[in-house]
């Protein structure tokens, strides 16, 4: 019997745990020719900002071993155009939509939350904490527990009570658990991780940074071990908080890795650039793996790798 794949982000039920990651599925329209986006657990939008943003100059991408560096710089139309032109397309089709929001100050985050409250078709808000805080010399919110907590609490206050708030964490911090706790204390009902760690590549022919912006965000399978570690540590510290795991997922096995580490939902990002159908494929593969392992429900696999280990394990496996 196939496993029950339903999962919950706070009180919101999703029919399955596979989401798209912010900034990797466009506005939904672009994926539609390849895959039925309504069948995803949810689609996450690119991070939406108050004003339109032109983003960073090109080159915006560089390929690295099993990874991709990007410096798009949150190019986007701004909240008004999002509400008038992009969200309605998703809402009309019934695409469950997590709206990612980003701002340069606590006030801006809170304003975005208010604007999105009540907008039809919004399943949850995801707070992109990897935004530079203009009031703190551009230090990103995700690197500072108190700034992160403050932003989350402003969003929580600004958004309607029944709209779940998800805080999205970056891995390049000294202690991801401290940030996670600050976000939960600030009112986050769920956490998503990981955003891209900052990386860089040099073009050895031009002898210049490969990206116009210099540094960029690293994504893809290269960072999966960082994602598994972050999910593991946060689930260990906050077992009751739903975690959306992401970072280098390309297959059902990769998704299961994050689930066993503690994620109750898994987002696909960079893999969509290679295989626009990846969300559905990963879902099917994950279902099969759970069934093979005798699970009745996805929920039973969440965090299972944390169970106490027995010495005999090792010997069984080598038989």
């Amino acid at each position, binding site marked *: 019997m196939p496993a029950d794949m339903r999962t919950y982000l706070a009180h919101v039920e999703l029919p399955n745990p596979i989401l798209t990651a912010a900034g990797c599925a466009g506005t939904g329209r672009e994926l539609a020719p390849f895959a039925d986006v309504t069948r995803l657990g949810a689609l996450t939008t690119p991070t939406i900002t108050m004003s339109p943003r032109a983003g960073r100059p090109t080159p915006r991408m560089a390929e690295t071993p099993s990874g991709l560096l990007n410096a798009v710089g949150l190019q986007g139309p701004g909240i008004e155009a999002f509400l008038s032109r992009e969200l309605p397309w998703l809402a009309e089709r019934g695409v469950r939509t997590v709206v990612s929001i980003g701002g340069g100050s606590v006030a801006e985050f809170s304003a975005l939350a208010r604007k999105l409250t009540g907008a039809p078709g919004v399943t949850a808000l995801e707070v992109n904490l990897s935004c530079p805080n203009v009031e703190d010399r*551009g230090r990103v919110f995700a690197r500072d527990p108190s700034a992160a907590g403050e932003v989350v609490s402003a969003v929580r206050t600004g958004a309607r009570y029944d709209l779940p708030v998800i805080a999205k964490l970056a891995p390049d911090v000294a202690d991801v658990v401290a940030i996670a706790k600050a976000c939960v204390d600030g009112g986050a009902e769920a956490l998503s991780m990981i955003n891209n760690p900052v990386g860089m590549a040099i073009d050895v022919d031009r002898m210049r940074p490969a990206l116009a912006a210099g540094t960029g965000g690293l994504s893809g399978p290269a960072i999966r071990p960082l994602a598994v570690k972050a999910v593991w540590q946060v689930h260990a510290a906050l077992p009751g908080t739903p975690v959306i795991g992401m970072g280098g997922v390309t297959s059902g096995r990769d998704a299961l890795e994050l689930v066993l580490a503690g994620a109750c939902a898994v987002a696909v990002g960079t893999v969509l650039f290679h295989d626009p159908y990846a969300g559905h494929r990963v879902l099917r593969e994950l279902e099969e793996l759970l069934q093979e392992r005798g699970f009745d429900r996805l929920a039973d696999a969440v965090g299972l790798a944390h169970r106490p280990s027995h010495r005999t394990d090792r010997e069984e496996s080598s038989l």
Partner: protein
Amino acid sequence: MAGSPVQVTGTVLTMRRVDAYHAMTVVAPGIADRFRPGHFVTVAVGGPRTSTLTRRAFAVHDVKPDYGGTVELVFTVRGAGTAWLADRRARDPLDLIGPLGRPFPLPRDPASCLLVGSEYGAAGLFALADALQQRNCRVDFVLGAASSDRVFGALRARRMAETATLTTRDGSLGVRGSVVDVLPGVIADTHADVVYAAGPMATLGGVTAVCADLDIPVQVSVEELMACGIGVCMTCTVPVIGDDGVTRMTRACVDGPVFRGERVRFGDLGTIPFDAHGAPGGDRAR
């Protein structure tokens, strides 16, 4: 469904060397059906467990109805992905997505069309030439490259077009110089009504400047690093002036690669023009 892209596992039919280029024909029915001149495809490279994640984009050189539909790509080896592609052999599977992008718009009425191709940019112009000739357009070619072995399609161009002017930077074939250098003369000689151009960005900028001077419409097929090719990643943007006069960072993969030349702000490539929609101002998230 013309234009709506599909993902297919094609099969390599033939691999040939053409001077400095590799020409690869792939059986890929769904793509061949939907193709219009100017479309491109993306190819997954490296095989299982490769460390090269992103697809590579190639103009479609030709489509044929054989075996349900084949597409031909022409490419030079540059880095890891094209090196892998060059190693493919007949019968190897190849994962393709296409056709992608906005194709070349065709003139409604017969016109004199000058097709300007630099380096591998030439590859994408032959299907366009066919379509134009079917509409009774006059077709002329200017093809150029650094050296003679990199001038693609000279023979075919000579055979099919009214005239074909060749240029090489080292003078090893045709006129020494670039396609831009010969352009004013060729436009005058051929009484070109419209120019189509493909090649490196600097060349396209030069072609556009000449056309603007002479007040001739020009369609250019631009190139920018692409991580997805399907419009979801926002890495391939180019500053393009919209119908409303506003410059936007515009995706080359879905809103292009073909643009009206004078709409592309060639002088501002690699920057965010200060007057672009959403250019840095108040708000600066990462």
